[in-house]
């Protein structure tokens, strides 16, 4: 990873996401235990932890891909309830990037990006496509616009997925292990795109094990294990001076190579 390109930008006091005592169960299995989290506008948070620790589940609760059973989740002033209007409202504000990209294979790259603006935001097709091209340029693959996802490399597909989310003009972006399914030589191009996005002031929550990325752009690192937030700290402190034994063990395992 290159030198930190941006000094930590000022974070405003507006709370974008608030989780209050959130619990979730899969059947009998208690996946999320009393999660409390406040995310300010413009904050960039990296969430790490061993697999099965509930980190993906937590961010998937924020746009209702998973339902929480107890506690409160408030996104940009709207509380997530069973009310479909609230869910739609929040999904318009929250973009998500998946581990396996989840591009629509039957649509071209451009159609993938323009689809939601046209059908959800009711934007005229021409305007939506012009905007899609703008974002494809931002992720540096405008020349692939007419191709189908199956013809692109993994790194390119993930950048298209980022552009697709940005086309909805979200104020929050969630990343669910965006680089774990990529070949090593493609990880950098995706991380560079994410760093650029961070520099533009986007509120971001990233589940990732890219510790270089965490050091460069995160304001806070959150460590989860067994469905709980074990530790949260500034990246500098988190990596050099971890508090709990479980964090120390985890860091020693992922950093020793």
């Amino acid at each position, binding site marked *: 990873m290159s030198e930190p390109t941006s000094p930590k930008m000022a974070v405003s006091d507006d709370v974008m996401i608030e989780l209050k005592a959130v619990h979730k169960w899969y059947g009998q299995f208690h996946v999320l235990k009393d999660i409390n989290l406040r995310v300010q506008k413009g904050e960039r948070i990296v969430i790490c932890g061993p697999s099965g620790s509930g980190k993906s589940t937590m961010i998937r609760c924020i*746009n*209702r*891909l998973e339902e929480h059973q107890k506690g409160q989740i408030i996104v940009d002033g709207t509380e997530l309830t069973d009310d479909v209007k609230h869910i*739609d409202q929040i*999904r*318009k504000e*929250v*973009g*998500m990037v*998946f581990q*396996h990209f*989840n*591009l*629509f*294979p*039957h649509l071209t790259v451009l159609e993938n990006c323009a*689809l*939601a603006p046209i*059908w*959800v935001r009711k934007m005229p097709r021409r305007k939506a496509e012009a905007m899609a091209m703008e974002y494809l340029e931002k992720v540096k693959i405008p020349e692939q616009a007419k191709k*189908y*996802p*199956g*013809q692109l490399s993994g790194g390119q597909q993930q950048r298209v997925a980022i552009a*697709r*989310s940005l086309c*909805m003009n979200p104020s929050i972006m969630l990343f669910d292990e965006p680089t774990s399914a990529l070949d090593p030589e493609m990880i950098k191009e995706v991380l560079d795109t994410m760093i650029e996005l961070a520099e533009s002031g986007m509120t971001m929550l990233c589940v990732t094990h890219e510790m270089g990325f965490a050091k460069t752009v995160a304001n806070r690192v959150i460590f989860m294990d067994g469905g709980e937030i074990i530790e949260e700290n500034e990246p500098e402190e988190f990596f050099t001076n971890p508090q709990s034994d479980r964090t120390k063990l985890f860091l020693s395992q992922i950093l020793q190579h």
Partner: protein
Amino acid sequence: MSIHTPHPDLPPPVTSVGAIGWLRNNLFSSPLNTAFTLFALYLLYETVPPLIDWAFISANWSGDTREVCDANPSGACWAFVRVRFDQFMYGFYPESEYWRINLAIGLLVALMVPLFIQKFTRKGLLAAFILIAYPIIALQLFAGGNFGLESVETSKWGGLTLTLILSAVGIVASLPLGIVLALGRRSNMPIVKSVSVVFIEFWRGVPLITVLFMASVMLPLFLPEGTHFDKLLRAMIGIALFQSAYMAEVVRGGLQAIPKGQYEAAEALGLSYWKSMGLIILPQALKMVIPGIVNTFIALFKDTTLVLIIGLFDLLAMIQTAFNDTNWLGFSIEGYVFAALIFWVFCFSMSRYSQALERKLHTGHAR
């Protein structure tokens, strides 16, 4: 360590490519395969030339009576099919009104041609016209009674016309109904789900013959006295409901093959249930099950012959009726061969069309 020099591309050995390579790989790869190949050639030699001789070379094409055929019994008597051809095509429809059927079918073909032209851009609009307006026009032409057209009862409709009407209605009704049932069966709403499951399992568990009998014999008993409910219409409804249950299971197979990530990505973008189904899930799922859908269409097309048992005269029934003509006794082989040929042409066309469609819709998708 030595320095690596790139190796040039060489052509493959001559014996593994071309006609000789193909023969060697596919027909004579082992002594057993060689024996099978020779045996198959022998069987073809024994059956194909006599068949060609019977059907074409010695066949009787001309003549309006059976004398020509009796004089030359070693060839097929196509004169029988020729004399009866109009009835095979139009059933008992009045001869003076054949033009109405021809017009309706010609109109359909003319309307469908632009759908296959790449440059034509208003395909959606035209398809909607064919699905909504055309059936009304066609019904007016077939049944008459308006616009100074002589009224023709449905009991007189028959032959290939009836086969095509029954299968077209069956296909057009069963696909959307099947899609709705498949979505219903996968729904989270308990009532929608159980209604779909019960419907599908009921209709799949009952033989089509029973369905047709029920529609034709039992249903009128339950209807109030004096209600007239056309027999052909009842058969159409029976066939459509029956086939939609099969269609639903084919479509469900496609829906289940779509990775969960596609549903999640659509949801995360804020698409509603119907939009994500219509724009993301169904286009992929239906494309995946084109072979299964066309398989059901082909089965439906052939199953329409069962309407014979409730007294509707489709192509096969018309041909069988012609066997009883005392002037033409003993030519059932020609009749059945003709029926087989017509059915084969339609079914094979559907199959080829589906293959072309699969190739056209293939976008090299690797998920």
